[in-house]
């Protein structure tokens, strides 16, 4: 801390702070528009923060002047006031005074600063500048150029944060305006952040426009559970309706940004497609019934299926819901068949070793590490907000980025070294890295198995081993999903050991699960072979694929789907169709998914994430609290309450009467969550690794392992290897949110230019991807950086599902023109 004097008062402020921030330590407010530290270095464009610094003849911008010991600053002199009043006057001469009809009115920095620092009158009597207004900057954002004060925030966001480089300032001088090249719509994964950045009403949400005024709404803080990034959000609520989602800045989670899915998919909460009453299938049709009837039907189905019931939990399931589902099945029905993952199960000892607190990296580590390896995941799709964190690390902190993925990554251009591995060859790459780092394995053969040249692996190994001690490996669950998952996990643990990632604070592994609460569900025991706390269960149950097989051949009879939609997310759709056909399906779901429509026997309406109470666990181990922002619509009841009621009806009460009691049971059952309370978790969350109880995490099998040699990949013989990916937009919430619909994922086949030419397929043409009699229709997308020999299809699309081609094994497919 240093001492400076502002307006005659001595103030202690942290060194390196800019004056605007330092002044806050002395309760002095210096107004500004363009300054936003999250956007990088100050630009000093708005000139609102001019202050007098003794010893410097000209007024200085407080946003760009660092505090210094002994500095004497004046913010209230006539000279400063005149300059600040002047800037307000200049800003207002072309700003329309349409505050009464402006969305920003009431929460507008320009309004506030005009009130606080303006003259109150204007001397400007000439005609104002006029633009057509408002215009569609994109289907999501309206731009009103008359209101724009040219503060550059949105342009800087596009250029320096999301790095989509779409927004620019066009023309110059008083004619300057924000726009895009050639007027193209500004469509990008993070575009909505500019609405929140705008200090005036120039950029407004088209979904929120004219829906409410700031004094009519309330804010409810919670967590977005649409993806594993679990960004902290604030719901803007009016009359029990969510009208808007704002970022609730948490620098250890989201750094104050949101993706467009998180920002706009709230619309799915209030659509006609929402299921708001319990339903039971009668005569082939789903009919709305009372709760009693629905619960009774479900309870009797479950009671008759003791030992033969199974459960799947979808990614948005909270820890409490997953935990209670586990108790219902394991204790109430003596059925251990329970899973929250779609892929092949990972041996428990490896799962425990991967979750070791000493190996855990945090989200900020991605930014401050010496090097990060992005392995078998695409951050912008799998946990979007991490994409921005990685860009920030490279841009501001000199973090060295390496990418090893099958598909070209949007981060390739930020990376020092990018390699393209064969689909499913993440384990092979790790084994090759292990060899390059000195395991003594056959580097040549392993590199070939990963589809790489030896030099590419060596470069990667050198980068990671020489960057510094803080190295983070950001890996996607895809890595351990397939039959080679255990091998990949062992290889990952070996590489972590060789790079010394157990020790340093800023180093480690960060795994992105497929489901939003994938980590939490595993830790509370929604796994076939592990109970709460990742502890082995006496009788291991069937994993997801085994459940499908069991249902299909009659060994299991009843399936409880808690927010899960296997037809959409699980491999081997054909098997699942047979399984669902045979089973009694109890579905806890918020919208009419195909699974519900075709197969559900009983449907319980599910809460949306804005209605839920409970906890979720972030991929880096942070327990975060969901708090209801709105009441439940229609007949919707909390899932924990329904699960408790069902357990009661089958004669095994769970002792849960409130949501908080459910949380209490979870922390009691998971040793490394011990004694956590909802109050502890609060609005900022708690990483369990940072608590004493973390030592209760079982050690598992940390290795090192001798890796078994990998079989050579089968000869392609003109076929293409099939890879899959899940786009950020592949979500039911996107499909039913009116303003996001246009982004909904449609099946496309990504091909290399070489393969496209060989097949005579042009970009944008329809193609058919065929395997073993099944086919998927897709639009060809030719991507320059995709290696030849591979075709990528999208997972979880609403139509043309890729899971009719896959069953978890690597596939060779034919691509042809239909």
């Amino acid at each position, binding site marked *: 801390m240093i001492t400076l004097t502002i307006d005659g008062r001595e103030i202690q402020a942290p060194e390196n702070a800019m004056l605007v921030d330092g002044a806050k330590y002395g309760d002095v407010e210096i107004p500004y528009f363009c300054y936003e530290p999250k956007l990088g*270095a*100050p*630009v*000093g*464009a*708005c*000139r*609102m923060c*001019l202050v007098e610094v003794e010893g410097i003849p*000209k*007024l200085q*911008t407080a946003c*760009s002047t660092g505090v210094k010991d002994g500095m004497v600053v004046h913010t209230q002199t006539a000279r400063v006031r*005149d*300059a600040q009043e*002047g*800037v307000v*006057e*200049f*800003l207002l*001469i*072309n700003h329309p005074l349409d505050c009464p009809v402006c969305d920003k009115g009431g929460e507008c920095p320009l309004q506030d600063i005009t009130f606080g620092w303006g003259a109150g009158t204007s*001397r*400007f009597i*000439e005609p104002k*500048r006029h633009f057509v207004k408002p215009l569609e900057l994109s289907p999501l954002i309206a731009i009103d150029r008359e209101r724009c*004060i*040219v503060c*550059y925030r949105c342009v800087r966001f596009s250029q320096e944060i999301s790095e989509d480089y779409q927004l*620019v*300032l066009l*023309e*110059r*001088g*008083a*004619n*300057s305006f924000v726009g895009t090249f050639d007027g193209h719509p500004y469509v990008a994964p993070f575009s909505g952040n500019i609405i929140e950045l705008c200090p005036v009403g120039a950029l407004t949400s088209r979904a929120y426009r004219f829906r409410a005024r700031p004094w009519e709404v309330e804010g409810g803080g919670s967590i977005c559970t649409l993806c594993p990034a679990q960004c902290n959000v604030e719901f803007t609520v009016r009359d029990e309706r969510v009208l808007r989602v704002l970022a609730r800045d948490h620098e250890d989670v989201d750094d104050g940004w949101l993706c467009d899915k998180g920002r706009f998919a709230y619309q799915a909460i209030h659509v006609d497609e929402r299921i708001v009453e319990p339903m039971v299938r009668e005569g082939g049709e789903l009919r709305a019934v009372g709760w009693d009837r629905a619960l009774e039907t479900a309870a009797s189905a479950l009671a008759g299926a003791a030992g033969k019931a199974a459960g799947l939990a979808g990614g948005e399931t909270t820890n409490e819901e997953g935990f209670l589902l586990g108790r219902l099945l394991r204790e109430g029905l003596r059925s251990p068949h329970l899973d929250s993952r779609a892929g092949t199960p990972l041996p428990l000892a490896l799962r425990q070793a991967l979750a070791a607190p000493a190996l855990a990296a945090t989200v900020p580590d991605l930014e401050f590490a010496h090097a990060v390896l992005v392995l078998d995941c695409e951050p912008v799709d799998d946990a979007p907000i991490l994409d921005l964190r990685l860009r920030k690390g490279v841009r501001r902190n000199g973090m060295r980025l390496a990418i090893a993925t099958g598909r070209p990554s949007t981060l390739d251009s930020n990376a020092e070294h990018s390699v393209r591995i064969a689909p499913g060859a993440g384990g092979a790459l790790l084994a090759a890295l292990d060899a390059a780092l000195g395991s003594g394995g056959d580097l040549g053969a392993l590199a070939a198995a990963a589809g790489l040249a030896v030099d590419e692996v060596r470069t990667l190994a050198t980068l990671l081993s020489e960057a510094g001690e803080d190295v983070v490996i950001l890996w996607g669950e895809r890595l351990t999903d397939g039959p080679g998952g255990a091998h990949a996990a062992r290889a990952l643990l070996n590489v972590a050991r060789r790079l010394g990632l157990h020790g340093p604070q800023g180093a480690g592994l960060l795994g992105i699960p497929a489901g939003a609460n994938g980590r939490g569900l595993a830790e509370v025991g929604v796994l076939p072979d592990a109970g709460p706390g990742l502890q082995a269960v006496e009788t291991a149950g069937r994993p997801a694929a085994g459940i499908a097989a069991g249902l299909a051949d009659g060994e299991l009879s009843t399936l409880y789907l808690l927010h899960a939609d296997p037809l959409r997310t699980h491999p081997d759709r054909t098997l699942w169709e047979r399984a669902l056909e045979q089973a009694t399906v109890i579905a806890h779901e918020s919208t009419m998914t195909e699974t519900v429509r075709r197969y559900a026997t009983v449907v319980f309406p599910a809460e949306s994430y804005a209605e839920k109470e409970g906890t979720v666990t972030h991929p880096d181990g942070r327990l975060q609290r969901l708090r209801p922002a709105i009441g439940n619509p229609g007949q919707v009841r909390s899932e924990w309450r329904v699960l408790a009621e069902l357990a009661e009806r089958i004669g095994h009460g769970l002792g849960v009467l409130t949501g908080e009691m459910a949380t209490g049971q979870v922390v009691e059952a998971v040793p490394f969550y011990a004694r956590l309370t909802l109050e502890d978790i609060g609005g900022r969350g708690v990483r369990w690794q940072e608590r004493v109880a973390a030592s209760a995490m079982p050690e598992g099998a940390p290795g090192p392992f001798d890796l078994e040699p990998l079989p050579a990949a089968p000869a392609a013989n003109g076929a293409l290897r099939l890879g899959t990916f899940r786009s950020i937009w592949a979500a039911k919430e996107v499909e039913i949110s009116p303003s996001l619909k246009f982004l909904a994922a449609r099946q496309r086949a990504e091909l290399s230019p070489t393969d496209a030419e060989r097949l005579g397929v042009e970009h944008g043409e329809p193609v058919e991807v065929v395997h073993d009699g099944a086919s998927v229709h897709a639009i060809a997308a030719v991507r320059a950086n995709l290696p030849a020999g591979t075709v990528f299809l999208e997972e979880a699309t609403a139509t043309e599902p890729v899971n009719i081609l896959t069953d978890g094994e690597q596939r060779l497919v034919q691509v042809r023109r239909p």
Partner: protein
Amino acid sequence: MTALLFENIDEEGLNTLEVYERRGGYRSLPKALAMTRDEVLDTLVESGLRGRGGAGFSMGKKASFLPKTDMEKYLVCNADESEPGAFKDRELMQKNPHQLIEGIMIGAYAAGANRAFIFIRGEYDFQADILEAAVAEAYEAGYAGERILDSEHTITLVVHRGAGAYICGEETALLDGLEGKRGSPRLKPPFPANQGLYQGPTLINNVETLCNVPHIIRLGVEGFTKHGVEGSRGTKVVSVSGNVQRPGNYEVELGTPSRNIIYGLAGGPPEGREVKFWFPGGSSAPILTGDDLDLPYDFDSMAKAGSMLGSGSIIVIDDSNAVLDVALKVAKFYRHESCGKCTPCREGTNWTVKMLERIERGEATPMDLEIMAGVQERIIGNCLCVLGDSMAMPIGSMIKKFRDEFEAHIERARAEADGGPVPEPSALVGVAGAEPGPYPSTADAED
């Protein structure tokens, strides 16, 4: 009249290496290379050479601000001569490009830069061609490129053409332009000497400044400081334009009485006209009047008189012109060229033009003059770069020095617009548009 930079300037073929060498060119470069960097820097500091681009900062000091580290350093020659009234660099580059190249090489050597750029305004197409040809000759002869003159120093030189924006004459906007971005001024600090082109330490100098360097090395400190006066050493190429009989570039000793330049060299205003006011340093300098004609033409005297030497471009306005016409012309230029990045300049230039137009249309009251003067004051010193000041200072000085004329015009134009009786023009002031002088009225051409 002395001639340093303009020596042999009109000689046929001086733009070629052969003639330049024959006239004694490229002798200073080997001499400088034989000195240590610090010796060259000291020579430049002691010579008292001040920047000729407008700010008048000591060239040697600026060069010595560059950190003495191994970082890649740059020298950038600012040839984006766009100030209305300035055309000296054009002649220097067109007729004697090698003098500039030699200056750049010595400057780069002194600053420790291995890469040099000339950022020339896009409109100077003809001069850019000449420069490029000269640069090619210099490379060929070993004065530029790898291991110049068989020394261990490598200095590359690239001619970059701007895309036509006045703001790129501002040094940081120039750097943005050179990096391929939209040219907008950067926040200072960091100053280019620490973080300039591609974030590297960068020395930026005007064409004329660098053209002085070979002469300083040739003449030595003692020889060079014989020229000029205390505080303003050397000669100055002055562009004289406006209402004079012989407009053009004249090289004078700094400290020459202004009257000698305007009347002696440029011939003064046409018969029967008098100097009403003049811009001593391009259109961005506060105006001086006929009373100031006997001031010595040097940096400090101009500053003391409330104006500035700037780029050394004198624009003479005689009594056939109305001050309003000149003010409008100046304001429109700066409104057109404002980049729009900072508020006071973007909005202030636009507002000023609108107010002046209203005065012209007869829709203003004398109170508007107050407002306009206030607006200028709120621009000056409050902008990101000096472009806003470049309008506000001359306009402010015009209002101050010709308030009577503005007021008379306001009354007259209002009366005309109202259709009432038109007051007689005061004998003291010129009358806008009433009696066209021998030159096109400044208000005729639109921006």
